[in-house]
């Protein structure tokens, strides 16, 4: 973005603006785009979800307001705005008011580090990935505030569930993303995306691979396992079915949102859908190459930049558009998976969720980190790090090392999955046998 603005202002218009003006304008453009896009995304997501689920259920879904019901979310928004805002008499008024804000504001901050296309990012923080999850953990506080301030037992229970779930699933989510940091050698989301060029084999591992923007991390065994773990954890973080336990409508009405109405409720709704969108986007970014795709690399190479002053700024715009298209396509694909899951599955119980997270997901992600380290060692290290044995001469050497790494990590990951799955199944079977046998090991009855 900087290059294009610089080109327009200084080269074309000849304004000779100072550096910080160009920087400010380029940032403002990105921020403006984000603020235009984010609410529209939410509007569209709700419509998309309702139509998709309706199709799964032999219904039509909203189709009255506007063409094919496209304006239905707008109508809902108007309804939310004009609804009476009910605050329970015994609620803690100020905390009750602040809770939706605290829940929604951090989620918007998360847009700041999301790369939309080549050089299209609001702030390219060197700690982008950490920032993303640090900020998202603030909204937990909002949930607790909502649950406590409503002075409602359903709300309190929902908030407790929400916090327990979100806090314990943050661990596998972050652990499963660590591999990307190791692969790309950076926590910047831009660098992680840029490391995913190539054709099934990332150019960071084997530089001679043609760069078609398809060297996604998910094509490695490490990345694939991490993707599965992360997506499950993301479902729990975003409170989506089958982990929508904090707002289980059939048990605790609406969880922490029970006592909210009107705009405050809409804020929670907004926060949740933006969070879901962002989790899908981060899945696409880290595992599926983000804006990488066939053609982007070529457009970038033709475009104007500091290295290539002869480039045409039209290509900058085209590359940005193509990258954004790829990112959104991938994001919507994952959002569709979320929607399909919601349409198909019942929800788990809170203890089953915790068991799954702590006994299955976390060990699996830890083993995955080990595989990631092995991958790095086999593909990147040389004599300097004491790995001279696998250093092959010549260009095919990198490919051979890649194949070795692929095989080793595949074996480790499959074995880990198999072992853990078997452990958990045995555990389950033992409990079921105890159940049906009627011979339960139980503590003695409670003395009054």
């Amino acid at each position, binding site marked *: 973005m900087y290059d294009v603005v610089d080109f327009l202002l200084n080269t074309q218009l000849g304004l000779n603006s100072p550096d910080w003006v160009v920087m400010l304008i380029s940032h403002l453009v990105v921020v403006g785009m984000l603020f235009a896009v984010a609410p529209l995304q939410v509007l569209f997501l709700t419509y998309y979800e309702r139509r998709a689920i309706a199709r*799964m*259920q032999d219904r039509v879904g909203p189709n009255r307001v506007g063409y094919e019901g496209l304006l239905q979310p707008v109508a809902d928004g108007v309804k939310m705005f004009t609804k009476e805002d009910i605050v329970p008499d015994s609620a803690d008024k100020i905390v009750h008011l602040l809770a939706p804000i605290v829940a929604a504001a951090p989620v918007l901050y998360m847009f700041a580090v999301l790369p939309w296309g080549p050089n299209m990012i609001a702030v390219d923080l060197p700690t982008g990935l950490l920032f993303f999850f640090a900020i998202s953990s603030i909204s937990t506080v909002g949930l607790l505030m909502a649950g406590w301030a409503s002075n409602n037992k359903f709300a309190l*229970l929902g908030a407790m569930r929400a916090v327990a779930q979100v806090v314990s699933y943050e661990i596998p989510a972050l652990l499963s993303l660590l591999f990307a940091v190791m692969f790309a050698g950076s926590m910047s989301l831009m660098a992680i995306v840029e490391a995913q060029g190539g054709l099934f084999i990332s150019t960071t591992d084997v530089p001679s691979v043609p760069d078609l923007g398809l060297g996604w991390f998910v094509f490695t065994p490490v990345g694939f396992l991490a993707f599965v773990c992360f997506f499950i954890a993301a479902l729990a973080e975003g409170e989506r079915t*089958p982990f929508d336990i904090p707002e289980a409508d059939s048990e605790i009405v609406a969880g922490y949102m029970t006592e909210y109405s009107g705009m405050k409720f809409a804020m929670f709704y907004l926060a949740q859908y933006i969070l879901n969108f962002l989790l899908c986007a981060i899945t696409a970014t880290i595992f599926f190459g983000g804006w990488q795709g066939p053609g982007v690399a070529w457009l970038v190479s033709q475009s104007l930049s500091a290295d290539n002053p002869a480039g045409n700024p039209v290509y900058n715009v085209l590359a940005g558009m193509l990258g954004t298209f790829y990112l959104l396509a991938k994001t919507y694909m994952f959002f569709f998976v979320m929607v399909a899951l919601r*349409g198909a599955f*019942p*929800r788990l*119980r*809170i203890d089953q969720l915790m068991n799954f997270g702590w006994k299955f997901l976390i060990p699996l992600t830890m083993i995955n980190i080990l595989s990631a380290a092995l991958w790095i060692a086999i593909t990147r290290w040389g004599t300097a790090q004491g790995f001279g044995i696998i250093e092959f001469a010549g260009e095919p050497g990198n490919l051979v090392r890649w194949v070795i790494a692929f095989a080793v990590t595949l074996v480790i990951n499959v074995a880990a999955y198999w072992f853990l799955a078997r452990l958990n199944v045995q555990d389950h079977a033992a409990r079921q046998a105890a159940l049906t046998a009627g011979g339960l090991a139980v503590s003695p009855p409670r003395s009054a």
Partner: protein
Amino acid sequence: MITTDELQINIGPQHPSTHGVFRMLLTVDGETVVHLEPVFGYLHRNHEQLAEVNTYLQNMPYTDRLDYFNSMANNHAYALAVEKLAGIEVPERAEYIRVLMVELTRILNHAGALGFMINDMGAWQTPLAFGIREREKILDLFELVSGARMMCNYFRFGGVVRDIPDEFIPRMKKLMIAMPAYMDELERLLRENEILLARSEGIGILPREVAVSYGVTGPVLRGSGIAYDIRKAEPYSIYDRFDFDVPVGSVGDVYDRFLVRIEEMRQSRRILEQIIEQLPDASGGHINPKARQNVRPPVGDAYARVESPKGELGFYLVSDGGTKPYRYKVRAPSFINLTPLGDMCRGYKVADIVVILGSIDIVMGEVDR
């Protein structure tokens, strides 16, 4: 691990998954249920007292409103009780039509019950849509014969109010061809879904002795492993002519009640097949022409019970020789099946109680009357 304070929670009277206006007074320790007290009566509308100031026939539409899912079964039980009291014969064809309607009712009730129950587990309406879809097809048939979809009011003393139309049997045959696939689909959904298994296996166990001592009937009792079905134990109407099995569970948990319901749908379909084969032609008439609808039974009392989809549904009538019942009493299966709820939920998690409640399959219209 950490001792927490016990917390009292009211689930209901207005709650998404209490299937009506029903309250569960819950004492929880963390998420574990320590005590549960079912509180009902919010929907009481004086059904039994009302029946004593109406004539016998006027009561027939009221019985529709008991268990509004299964108006045909309610009609059947009430008609049987009055026929027993007044000594009315029922023609052959009418008996067949009655059983046909009641078995269709069983299928639609179980389909709906399973759908609602999975909905309580948190599936977002898709399984419910599965159940409702099949129910709608059967309701179309009901509309064809009685003009109403839910409150059919189809039975009369000595038969049914009108004969089935000509297109009924072909349409039903078409429906029955599709039925096995549907049932298999539903069973696959239950058997092969990991989450459904996790949420239903070992949950809400009702041991057989406890089930018997509470007087529980219907799929809940059979899920606990007791093959008690009034159609077998004390065959009424023409059930002794049909060949069908009574499915039973082994553990008595929610999962067993699932499987029992599905198997019962299959057995109902078996009965329907036999009915279609054996159905007498229209010459026998669909109602006993000698039976007066403004019935004035002799002094005495009668109790008639049927195996309604939810369990044993009985009507107890006392006549003083007048046109109105002197005493009218309903043994509602939903009510009796609901009584062990508190015991069944103890020790499980909050999330389980709605599933257990769903697996009992209650209709509040019947519980509160």
